[in-house]
């Protein structure tokens, strides 16, 4: 740390000398410094420069967020651009374990139905108001449980009450034991808003503070130019160590090719994703650092999954689904679509939830002969042009996908074509995809990135629970219904101890791997890339730049 600070001092001096230093004065006040890192203060001047001289970081983001309020949406664009202004009650470390953030400690009642959080008393909002338990209650009641779809859907029905027993204590009560709560309180799932700003009666979706957010996070909002950039300065009163940067600029660059060229030419310092083809080249270049993580602001532990419409004649036949499973060479998806940024899915639950992941489950493996044999047996005989048919009907299926997932469609079409399918690709934007697949059930097969989240209760159960067959998007697309699976999910959600939940989820995975309502293709990861002049990122969280610093090398 000492060496680093010295380096920073030198760099800072150099900057001042050449006159191209940062223009903002944030963090220059020595009084801020003493609160920021009390345990690590070799000399006053050293610490001061450590806090003030971290440079300005420029980050490329792919889409214009429109709003900077992460509590009222699950939109990845909004979360990417806004989480850094806020905090959750707890944070999740790189392994997904909860660690204190706004809450310094918590207690869980023995029956698993009551959680008591003790909040920090030294936190202030960016406008100087103190942070209290009322803010937490307000955020859950008015924002998260109303408008944050993931938190609303998973926690909403089980929550009995949420109460501030004093200024710094919050109690969550549930109607039945509720295991996954601690995984759902980070800044992605439950960012906390200030009541004194958002609680003025204006509907939250139209609140002016949505484009001028006030939070507790490491960076203070400075300006937002629609379609162009968001600027922020370091929060001098941040309750954790840091931030060390002077400021942060998030630049909207929609085209990933342009993003990469901007990184290489030094116009930006940090990318949330790297175009696959350039991965290897960038990895070898010492000017850049790459790191992979299964977490994204839009959700964690995602598996690209093919859903079969179990109500359609062709795909309702298990043999056909198995044949499709055997016809797919999933390694090629990893190599040619993801360029190695991911791995073949070994089980229905992501390996990112190790205690629930069951790698010994048997999924269909790549075996073209087996696929052909299964189709022959099912009565689909090869005809003209290689397309199979049965009773005068050809083996034609559609494959519905987001335009961004077109590569998956192209590979599926090619690989299924090998064994006699005629696959018709249908590219639909998300707002059209949702109703087409879930309300109208108008598809044979489709591909969805099902994000499992940090707990199977959050992102896995929705795919299989027969109660979730219906119009609600991104739930049970296959229309799969099995009473045993329903019962097992219920049991797992009410079991508190992780080691007791593991075997239940293993049993679920065994059953669904046999029934094959879905085919799990690949687990995807995000790869962040940054300029080697910067360091100290935490790529797995929305507060990625909390402890980062940049030098002008």
């Amino acid at each position, binding site marked *: 740390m000492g060496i680093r600070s010295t380096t920073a001092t030198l760099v800072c001096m150099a900057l001042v000398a050449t006159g191209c230093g940062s223009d903002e004065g944030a963090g220059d006040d020595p009084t801020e410094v003493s609160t920021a890192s009390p345990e690590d203060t070799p000399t006053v001047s050293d610490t001061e420069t450590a806090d003030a001289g971290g440079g300005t970081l420029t980050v490329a983001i792919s889409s214009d967020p429109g709003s900077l309020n992460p509590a009222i949406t699950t939109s990845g664009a909004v979360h990417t651009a806004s989480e850094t202004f806020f905090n959750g009650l707890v944070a999740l470390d790189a392994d997904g374990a909860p660690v204190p953030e706004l809450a310094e400690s918590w207690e869980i009642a023995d029956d698993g139905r009551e959680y008591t959080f003790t909040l920090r008393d030294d936190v202030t909002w960016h406008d100087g108001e103190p942070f209290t338990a009322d803010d937490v209650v307000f955020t859950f009641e008015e924002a998260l449980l109303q408008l944050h779809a993931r938190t609303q859907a998973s926690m909403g029905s089980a929550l009995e009450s949420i109460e501030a027993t004093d200024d710094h204590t919050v109690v969550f009560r549930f109607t039945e034991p509720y295991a996954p709560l601690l995984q759902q309180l980070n800044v992605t799932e439950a960012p906390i808003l200030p009541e004194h700003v958002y609680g003025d009666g204006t509907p939250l979706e139209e609140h002016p503070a949505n484009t001028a957010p006030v939070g507790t996070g490491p960076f203070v909002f400075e300006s937002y130019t629609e379609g162009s950039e968001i600027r922020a300065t370091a929060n001098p009163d941040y309750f954790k160590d840091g931030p060390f940067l002077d400021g942060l600029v998030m630049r909207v660059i929609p*085209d990933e090719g342009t993003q990469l060229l901007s990184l290489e030419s030094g116009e930006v310092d940090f990318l949330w994703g790297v175009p696959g083809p350039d991965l290897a080249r960038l990895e070898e270049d010492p000017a850049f650092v790459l790191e992979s993580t299964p977490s994204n602001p839009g959700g964690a532990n995602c598996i690209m999954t093919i859903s079969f419409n179990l109500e359609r004649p062709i795909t309702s036949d298990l043999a056909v689904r198995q044949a499709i499973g055997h016809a797919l060479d999933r390694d090629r998806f990893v190599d040619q679509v993801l360029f190695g940024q991911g791995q073949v899915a070994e089980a229905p639950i992501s390996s990112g939830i190790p205690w629930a992941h069951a790698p010994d489950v048997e999924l269909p493996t790549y075996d073209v002969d087996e696929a052909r044999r299964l189709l022959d047996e099912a009565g689909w005989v090869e005809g003209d042009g290689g397309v199979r048919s049965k009773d005068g009907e050809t083996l034609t299926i559609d494959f519905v996908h987001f335009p961004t997932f077109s590569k998956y469609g192209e590979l599926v079409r090619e690989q299924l074509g090998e064994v006699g399918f005629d696959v018709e690709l249908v590219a639909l934007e998300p707002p059209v995809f949702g109703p087409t697949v879930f309300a109208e059930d108008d598809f044979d097969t489709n591909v969805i990135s099902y994000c499992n989240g940090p707990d199977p209760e959050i992102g896995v159960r929705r795919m299989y629970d027969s109660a979730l067959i219906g119009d609600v998007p991104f739930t049970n697309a296959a229309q799969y219904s099995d009473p045993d699976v329903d019962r097992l999910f219920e049991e797992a959600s009410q079991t508190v101890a992780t080691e007791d939940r593991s075997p239940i989820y293993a049993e679920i995975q065994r059953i669904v791997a046999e029934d094959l309502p879905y085919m799990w293709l690949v687990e995807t990861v995000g790869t962040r890339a940054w300029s080697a002049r910067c360091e100290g990122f935490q790529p797995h969280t929305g507060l990625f730049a909390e402890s980062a610093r940049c030098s002008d090398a």
Partner: protein
Amino acid sequence: MSARYLLRRLAQVPPSALLILVVTWLLLHLAPGDPLIALAGQYGDEAYYTAMRERFGLDQPLPQQLATYLGNVLQGDLGTSYVRGRPALSVVAERLPATLLLASTALVLSTTVGVALGVLAARLGGGRADVSVRVSTLTLYAMPAFWLAQLAVLGLAYRLGWFPIQGMTDARRSLSGLAAVGDVFHHLLLPAAVLAAGELALNVRLVRTGLLEAARSDYVRTARAKGAPGHRVLYHALRNAMLPVVTVLGNRIGMFFTGAVLVEVVFAWPGVGRLLLTSAQSRDLPVLLAVFLVVAGAVLVVNLLVDLLYTRLDPRISYAARD
């Protein structure tokens, strides 16, 4: 005469705009799909979706939604963006200056440089030069904008480093005053040049043809015979040659907007083109409609202006005879 004509043209604008609005609105609302998904994300439950539908008035019958919408439009209210929760018109208005700056710079570039090169090309005379001018301008004209943009970014910005790669400003510096203007100008040049290229080629062609025609015409011959100075002759000839340039210009303003969409994507230019793409993807219908109205409106207005310019350039034109 021309004032009456322009008044008549002006009177045609509102009904045209209204009809375009209604047709587009119907098209958007009859299409399959549901803006809710964009609003609510992929994890909501039934009650949540119902509540969201009510909040945004999406549960009412279509005719009622249309009537409400038209009523609001007449009062200058184009609705509230589903995604942003702000008035759609202000969302578009914020993005419009960037596109206008890009398009008007491209317009100026293509006209000034195009006319200048056209005059030069005319000096080459007809015959052999004709083929090379024709083929080279048509080649530039035929180049897809996105392709040219890719090549320009890769070559001029990335490899040679003459221009910034993306954006409208330098993200690292907060500049003010003259320095800020210079910074924007530096960022503007390359995308504007790419956007202008095709139009420029067209103008070279038109001016050159016009001047060659004029050189053969009686009035230029007479002027020359009378010993008028060369620049005066050129002025008169150019004035005539400019007429097709102006006509074409008026009718291509919509296309500048179109080209702007592709150029904005490649250069990360924060204009309405990208707003169109993102709001189409998220089905933010009020914003989509607002973009439409604004662009169509701009085209109408520029057409009017071109008509005005015309009367100044060529007094021979009788507007009563038009249309």
